[in-house]
């Protein structure tokens, strides 16, 4: 419909309707949406499937009882839950300080133009792509055998720490790089040392990004089964770890063990445990988001 305002009698008609949205635009929009939908639908189907299948066993016995091979209807995953917490605790203990400080060196101290820095940089990026089973072989050779730490919580923690270290370093560097350069210069111009500037300005400003990257890295470590299989976590464990040198099992290992069993009760139990693992992962991601939001609000 056209406007009914007064117009000069001799003015040419103005076409503001154009040719409408081109077909390419519409198609592209739908392709983008479909790509997103594929990911979401598969995840939803997977979640629904395991939840329905594991539903009968999503009871307190799942986290109150120990695993049992003879009586699957009363078996639980308590030793796997505590084992996961122990292992991931040690992973964080080893990986976080080393990862953060390594990233700080790369980003704040090292000369970006030097050959050494560029060499390290390329290697870290490549390490992030190394299959986790390779880390398992490494952990078996060095921590379990050469250092004689055996099949213990600490071996698993160290191995998983190596596994997630590149991810933590890369994400921490990204977070540090996102801090505006003029914050650093402002601090240095006041006579602060590089250490003071890094510790009091750059790192606090990078906390949101560091937290997000870290939790995502640890979430990956929680879900890992392959390197731990190599490290000898396959054995049947029906007690909670008592310390760093205790034997252990973790949730992915426990799930792996149960899915190997032929009896239907174990399949149900495995599904229920998968749901439990997903809940823990979601909780960790929620914590990451919480930390990010809270630290961002401060400024």
């Amino acid at each position: 419909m056209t406007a009914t305002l007064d117009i000069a009698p001799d003015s040419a008609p103005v076409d503001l309707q154009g040719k409408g949205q081109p077909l390419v635009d519409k198609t592209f929009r739908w392709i983008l949406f479909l790509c997103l939908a594929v990911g979401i639908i598969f995840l939803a189907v997977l979640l629904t499937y395991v939840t329905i299948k594991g539903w009968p066993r999503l009871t307190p016995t799942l986290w109150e009882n120990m695993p049992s091979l003879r009586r699957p209807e009363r078996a639980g995953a308590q030793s796997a839950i505590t084992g996961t917490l122990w292992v991931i605790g040690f992973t964080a203990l080893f990986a976080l300080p080393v990862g953060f400080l390594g990233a700080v060196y790369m980003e704040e101290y090292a000369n970006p133009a030097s050959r050494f820095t560029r060499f390290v940089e390329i290697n870290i990026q490549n390490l992030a792509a190394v299959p986790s089973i390779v880390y398992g072989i490494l952990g078996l050779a060095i921590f379990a055998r050469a250092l004689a730490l055996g099949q213990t919580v600490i071996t698993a923690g160290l191995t998983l720490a190596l596994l997630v270290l590149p991810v933590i370093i890369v994400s921490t560097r990204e977070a540090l790089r996102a801090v505006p350069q003029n914050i650093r210069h402002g601090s240095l111009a006041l006579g602060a040392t590089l250490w003071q500037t890094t510790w009091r300005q750059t790192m606090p400003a990078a906390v949101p990004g560091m937290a997000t990257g870290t939790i995502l890295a640890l979430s990956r470590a929680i879900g890992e089964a392959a390197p731990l299989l190599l490290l000898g976590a396959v054995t049947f464990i029906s007690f909670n770890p008592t310390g760093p040198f205790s034997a252990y099992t973790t949730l992915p290992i426990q799930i792996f063990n149960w899915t190997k069993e032929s009896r239907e009760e174990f399949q149900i139990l495995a599904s229920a445990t998968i749901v439990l693992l997903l809940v823990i992962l979601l909780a960790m991601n929620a914590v990451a988001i919480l930390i990010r939001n809270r630290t961002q609000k401060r400024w």
Partner: protein
Amino acid sequence: MSEIHDPDAPQSTSDMAMTGRMDVSAVLEGAEIPEVVSNIVFDLANVRVFYGDFEAVRDVTMQIGRNEITAFIGPSGCGKSTLLRSFNRMNDLIPGARVEGLLAYHGFNIYAPDVDPIEVRRRIGMVFQKPNVFPKSIYENVAYGPKVNGMKVNMDDLVEECLTKAALWDEVKDDLKKSAYALSGGQQQRLVIARCIAVKPEVILMDEPCASLDPIATAKIEDLMKELAKDYTIVIVTHNMQQAARVSERTAFFTADVDAQGVRHGRLVEYGPTRRIFTAPHDPRTEDYISGRFG
């Protein structure tokens, strides 16, 4: 020659704004000052600044006087900011940057090998083009410098003193715990100045401090600079010639030489009392620049 034209000038700070021209005598204040700098803080002799092989500033010789406001003017790429940043060794932060010649502060070469750049920067503060407040509260922004320098002072008193000196106290005294990001651009820049004077420097370097501010905020910063000049030595880089004429005692005009390869090298053309530079420049290049015939 009594008129200068600057198309980038703020458009409402004074009577010259309507025409883009100004009567210099209305803006230039104070008595005539001698050509020779008497109370020398910085003594530069044949200073050259390099970025790698690139010579950004060529052969600058000048003296900067105590409790004076010295303005560096000139077109973009003439090396004035580069030179300013070498006064407190901020150029050290750029890989490959180095300074040749003698840059002396009270007679001591600040590029001598045994000089600690941290100590230099504590005595020679800096205000940047973009207000770079820290992502912390207003109070913490001011208290940061004294804290990292280990100054034993009553912090509450110092924060109040510095914010008062920076003409910001009345506006923020009830919001000291609020984020500095909640302030306007002009307030942030005054907070940066308060933060700078909290470490009790002798010199304040200002690198286009009003470039991102509106004319009203600019006028406030200019008033503040004149007030601060009683206690501090100020060196300011500005693209705004009216600003140089309004606030400074002395003006240095820089320009860029283009060499055979098309590379621009900054050099000092003329340096002297602001009144003389704007009314009777010796060098025709200065004359062209201040009268808007540059380039």
